[in-house]
């Protein structure tokens, strides 16, 4: 038998049709698998669409400034990095008289801009208005210091020098009072306080 005959015989063997039962069986398996592949692909598409929808929706809400304040601030911070401008979540303190070269997106930006100013950290510029307790910057920044003496105002004149000091400073002054020079300076302070109070009391009606 020559090579061509053998090759023909092998090809005839390969071309034999499948029996009907096996064909039906495998076709059923294929259609079941096709449905499951289709379901998997549909699920993947839905999940992908949900993720895209979530991001588009979030971006839309952020653009409209409709997110909760803290989230809006985060969205502004993140989107600002990719060059998308959205409104901030909090109103920032940006009084042009107190905060030159403003407005500032946040307090950090103000501090960075005024690196050479040692008091920049204490400034309310760029801070959320709610956190500094008012819309007027000068009042807000002075508030903690100006309120303390007023609350202790009803105390007697003898205690006035002590009451004007911050609680933390009291201990320091007591420890210092061992030296004569300190005693003298504290005496000077007492006398100057007394004199200023007496001036105030004399000027008042």
């Amino acid at each position: 038998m020559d090579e061509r005959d053998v090759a023909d015989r092998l090809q005839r063997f390969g071309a034999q049709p499948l029996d009907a039962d096996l064909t039906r069986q495998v076709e059923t398996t294929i259609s079941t698998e096709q449905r499951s592949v289709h379901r998997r692909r549909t699920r993947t598409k839905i999940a992908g669409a949900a993720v895209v929808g979530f991001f588009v929706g979030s971006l839309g809400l952020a653009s409209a400034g409709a997110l909760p304040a803290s989230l809006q601030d985060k969205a502004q911070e993140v989107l600002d990095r990719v060059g998308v401008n959205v409104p901030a979540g909090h109103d920032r303190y940006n009084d042009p008289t107190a905060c030159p070269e403003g407005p500032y997106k946040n307090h950090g930006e103000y501090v960075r801009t005024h690196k050479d100013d040692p008091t920049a950290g204490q400034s309310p510029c760029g801070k959320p208005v709610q956190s500094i307790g008012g819309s007027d910057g000068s009042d807000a920044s002075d508030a903690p210091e100006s309120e303390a003496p007023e609350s202790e105002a009803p105390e007697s004149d003898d205690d006035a020098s002590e009451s004007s000091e911050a609680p933390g400073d009291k201990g320091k002054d007591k420890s210092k009072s061992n030296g004569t020079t300190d005693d003298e300076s504290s005496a000077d302070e007492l006398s100057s306080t007394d004199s200023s109070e007496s001036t105030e009391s004399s000027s008042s009606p």
Partner: protein
Amino acid sequence: MSENWDAEWVFRQHAPRVRAYLSAAGAPDADDLLGDVFVSITRAVPKFRGTEDELRSWVFAIARNRLRDEFRQRSRRSLPVRRTPEIAPSSDEPFDDTLMTALWSLTDEQREVVVLRFVADLSVEAVARMTDRSEGAVKSLQHRALATLGRFLDDA
């Protein structure tokens, strides 16, 4: 030209030769394996892009890999790997028992080449690519295999 292929069409077109290939290559259960092969094809065919010739090579590459996996699993589980052709194929046609026996007189390399070339009806180039041999090596193996089969069938 690149086309999208439907799994059912691929099955109708290629299942008989895939079944014959699995059987001639010594698959332990060719019918079960045929189902496995076409499940894999059904999963992967939506992503396949290629011509009809490329599709044919791709289908037989899947069948060959599935068959090798089967042999590997059986040897790992110490199950017997049959080294004789399947005697009862799922076909309505009369089975060429002598030809199947003759195939097992060949070396593994000769049998693989001759089955892929004529039972699967792949080109020399496709067989060379699939088996990682040169076209010259495929032609040489094919020539020796056909000569051996011819002698075996003359004696039978």
